[in-house]
């Protein structure tokens, strides 16, 4: 890991998406023991993992991990704390419904 350069790596992972009444959750587990550090980015490759209502979907996929540069890691460690308001339910947010949702999705680079 360089001070200014980002590294990329891929890791096999298991994605579990549950779209059930009992449990709505979605998790990624790395199968090679890869560890995520502050500022790293993770993207599961392939089309969105969609679970129909009432089902749990488990799929093995490849995740692409973009390792933050040393500098970025330090920066995230220093400043990440100030994003804590997102932990609270009522954090400031743009209007979510209904017109803002597709736009937000688009911003992230994924077609709504």
């Amino acid at each position, binding site marked *: 890991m360089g001070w200014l350069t980002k590294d990329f790596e891929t890791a096999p992972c298991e994605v579990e*998406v*549950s*779209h*059930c*009444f*009992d*449990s*709505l*959750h*979605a*998790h*990624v*587990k790395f199968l090679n023991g890869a560890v*995520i*550090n*502050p*500022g*790293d*980015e*993770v*993207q*599961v*490759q*392939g*089309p*969105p*993992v*969609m*679970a*129909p*209502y009432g089902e749990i979907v488990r799929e093995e996929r490849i995740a692409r991990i*973009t390792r933050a540069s040393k500098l970025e890691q330090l920066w*995230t*460690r220093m400043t*990440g*704390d100030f*994003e*804590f*308001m*997102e*932990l*609270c*339910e*009522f*954090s*400031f*947010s743009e*209007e*979510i*419904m*209904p*017109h803002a*949702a*597709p736009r*937000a*999705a688009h911003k*992230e*680079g*994924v077609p*709504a």
Partner: protein
Amino acid sequence: MKDMTHSADAATVEEALAADNHQGVVDSEGATALAMQNTLLTPRFYTTDFDEMDRIDVSSVREDWDKLIAQMKSDPNKGHFKKNEDWDHVDWDGMEPKLKREFIDFLVSSCTAEFSGCVLYKEMKRRGNNEDIVTLFQLMARDEARHAGFINDALREAGIAVNLGFLTQKKKYTYFRPKFIYYATYLSEKIGYARYITIYRHLEANPELRFHPIFKWFREWCNDEFSHGEAFALLMKTDPKLTQSFANKLWIKFFLTAVYSTMYVRDHQRPAFHAALGVDPDWYAHEVFTKTSEISRQVFPITLDIDHPRWQKGLEALQRANVDLADAKQTGKVFKRMGATVRAAAAFIGLFTIPAVKHQVPVSTRLEPAY
């Protein structure tokens, strides 16, 4: 009998249009509206100092800890989050549009919050090696996922599909020091309890104002929030520095001010929702702050002086600045935006500098839900 199809399950607009609950929509405007009702959940992803969390030693609060964990393991609310005959029919089509919009916004943001909590707790569980901590986070992740599933079901009735496809987007992991996770999640769980129970009690006294059955489930729901808060209170108790050092007291005050004022501003963005419940948002805020302050005395050595003359004035100033800020963002007025930002910051500093109320923290931390 063939199962009814629901537009909330549809993967494409065409499927949604063909679903049984949306037979009438044929024009392109209707199709667009339907497509938009697919709400992508966008939880945030966090990382923290997992080694520090592994070093937590709960032996100083062992008795209380074991009792709490045993209670959570026994899962008293299992089976509570089921729809039964108390789940009345909801007339979504007859609901006043502004109320419907605000109420759906309330449900979506609650669902996202539960979901984000689940992601955070699950990550802690996965990365931790300390048996006590791992067990706690696993139990809390279970509750949050259950709550999210319950809200999701209510959303489906309204034809809103929650999209869990976010994993294939690029997600950046931000960093929180463990103590900030304790302060923020402790407060978030306890204020969540106070918010839910206040609405529950209000609707118990005024059942004719209950416009959706989900409110009937708020009591057990908030008892889960209460237990989670208890666990964080015990965690903070294991290291006295977390709540007693000068710098950390300032952090606690900062978190209290930020959480209270954010709630105030956010609730004032949903006037129709509160009007339908017959709740004055100012009364509601004061009620919730009072309860949260009373509870948080279990572990925090200070509470905010919410009866100070500058408190309510400051909240109102922050709220006005926030309205102007939103308006300036929408219309692209740069100077108005700068002015509103400065006013919001000044209002926040005004609130933060109100002297706090100091008190002795009790030796025994544990509380039971009493409101």
